[in-house]
């Protein structure tokens, strides 16, 4: 079967996904790797999400301090200056109630547990998959419904 060099967005949407696409949810991707930022940015935009990226934890904290807010934060663990766990703790201390999800290539259960305990809502292994995103959107919709 021959197609153009483009994937149609229909390859990502199913009947159940239609409800969660185009929902004006905002996401902050915090990762020091330009490659990962680009990957996650593209993947999330496919679901109609509004994406902003931060190169490191300090930038993420500064964004919140300047009054920005996001529905979802995707947090890398291994970053210079402030690692993902430190940033998460700082944001929670500041009163940030956004969903914070760790995205890490950490193997050890203990390391992941420590990251979760910093204040994450969920933790996924890099790279983020379509299934992960669908799960997160469902969780965000639940959260929004509870808060309204």
């Amino acid at each position, binding site marked *: *079967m*021959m*197609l*153009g*060099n*483009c*994937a*149609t*967005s229909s*390859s*990502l949407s199913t009947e159940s996904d239609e409800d969660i696409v185009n929902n004006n949810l905002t996401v902050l991707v915090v990762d020091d*790797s*330009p*490659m*990962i930022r*680009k*990957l996650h940015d*593209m*993947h999330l935009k*496919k679901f109609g999400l509004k994406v902003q990226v931060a190169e490191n934890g300090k930038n993420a904290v500064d964004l919140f301090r300047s009054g920005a807010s996001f529905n979802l934060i995707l947090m890398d663990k*291994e970053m210079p200056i402030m690692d993902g766990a430190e940033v998460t703790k700082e944001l929670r201390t500041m009163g940030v109630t956004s969903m914070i999800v760790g995205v*890490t*290539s950490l193997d050890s259960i203990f390391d992941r547990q420590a990251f979760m305990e910093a204040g994450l809502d969920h933790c996924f292994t*890099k*790279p983020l*998959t*379509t299934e992960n995103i669908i799960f997160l959107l469902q969780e965000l919709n639940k959260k929004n419904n509870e808060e309204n």
Partner: protein
Amino acid sequence: MDLVKLQRQLVDYRDSLYHECFLDEQFTQLQELQDENNPDFVVEVVSLFFEDSERLLNELTKALEQQSIDFKRVDAHVHQLKGSSSSIGAQRVQKSCIAFRNYCEEQNVEGCLTCLQLVRQEYYLVKSKLEALFKLEQQILSAGGSIPI
């Protein structure tokens, strides 16, 4: 070369890369994210991977040349390389990083040096394979054809 032949060559070549574990499902996911609004997405992401990996390989070489090796630092670089290679589906690079990390934990210099050689080898192999794949795709597009799924 005629278009149909080129397209068949591409499919066979791409299949071989999966079959020989140079690439895995994650690369397929990457291709599925590309669309007409972002027609160079895969090439751009892979180029970032190349830049990142070469920087990390240089850092690893330097770190392992030190009189007193900082194994934590070496491990951090390998961990990063493992993460980025898994994100684009470069399976053999990713797997070679796993063994490397074990030697870092044991603080085994010889083991680390051997692994660095292996990781470098796997990286340059996948790099040349991906470049060949992109070249084939470009030839097909230049001939007015489309990339077969």
